[in-house]
């Protein structure tokens, strides 16, 4: 198992495609995506059970082995979060290499 960074990004649905491109551009194209998340933050309450589909978050999970990419990702993600809100957490993990 190799040490890696676990990046967890929460953005609203409408920014998901954009985040995906940002990740690819930063050289980290791989991710796992959980859709239909709700939540609560500075921009208030998100229910994710509305007819109006604007109230939904997505959670991206990225495992990053090459930690040198981290800064690039962070710099790409920051403006997105500034603009759309959301959250980005980075933590240490170990990756089971198969």
């Amino acid at each position, binding site marked *: 198992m190799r040490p890696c960074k676990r990046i967890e990004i929460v953005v609203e649905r409408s920014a998901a495609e954009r985040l995906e491109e940002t990740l690819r551009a930063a050289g980290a194209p791989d991710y796992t995506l959980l859709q239909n998340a709700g939540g609560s933050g500075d921009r208030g309450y998100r229910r994710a059970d509305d007819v109006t*589909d604007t*109230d939904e978050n997505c959670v991206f999970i990225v495992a990053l082995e090459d930690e040198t990419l981290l800064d690039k990702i962070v710099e790409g993600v920051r*403006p*997105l979060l500034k603009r759309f809100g959301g959250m980005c957490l980075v933590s240490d993990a170990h990756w089971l290499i198969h």
Partner: protein
Amino acid sequence: MSGAFLSNLTSPPLLFFFLGVFATFARSDLDVPNPVARAISLYLLFAIGFKGGVALSASPLSSDVLIALGAALLLAALVPVYVFFLVTRFFSSANAAALAATYGSISAVTFVTATNYLDAVGISWGGHFVAAMALMEAPAIVVGLFLYRRAGGDTEVSADREATAERTTIQQLLREAFLNGSVVLILGSLLIGWINGEAGMEQLAPLVKYPFVGMLCLFLLDMGLVAARRIRDIYDPRAGERSVSAKTMVALALAFALLNGSVALLIALLAGLPEGDALLLTILGASASYIAVPAAMRLALPSANPGIYLTMALAVTFPFNIVIGIPLFHYLIRALSA
């Protein structure tokens, strides 16, 4: 008046809307799963589009159609302009622009409820109004953003530019607006209905025609749940930091329904539209968008607060229109055209 008003109030769709509102305020756990709600709204757009297309195929494309579409576009361009200037005193220019777009655009379900009202009271309406509705969804978005930039929102936008590598240019936005899912489904179904005409309706009537009222009931049940939740949220401590008071929001949302409806009514009368069509144009004017526009605003104006524009359109203007607006404007049209 009060007759039509009452029979509207006690029609199954309205009563199911009230049931939804009641369930929320009674804190019942009644809930319509999200994918199902979306499926029903897809169904309503599909059905109304197809019905409109078939109706259109029956009557040859006359100048009436062009007049109606013209009146609709005029309305969609006019409303956001004065809405924007009326609200800039209460709101940041971002919120003002979002409200302009919201009220300049339309609510398909309000329109559908109005057509259902007309069918119930036995007044005919023109299928081309389905096209008019679809055409009215997008323009207000563009007008709203234009006003926003004129009002000096540029910095934020150019900031966008860097942040997102030019992704939200006006052209891009136009595309996003006119290719919005519901617009595509409505116009597509309209076209298909128009191509297939009565023969097509014979095949699809068991899905798009007969169960229509029932599906509308189920959807309004959900709309009642959703609208009431948002009303509750306004008066929720959590929403404490909101920049405007609940009172202001409710007052404005009602004022706009009445004002925009009246403007639309005027245009309808000047355009000499028949009774049914006049009501449809009026209700399109009075209604506000809570699906297409919020989705676009999230992209183009994330600094605008959905807690304001989405809540006003969904929780106040929508209920007002389907409960009071439709029969009220119908009454006015009769009075004025008499």
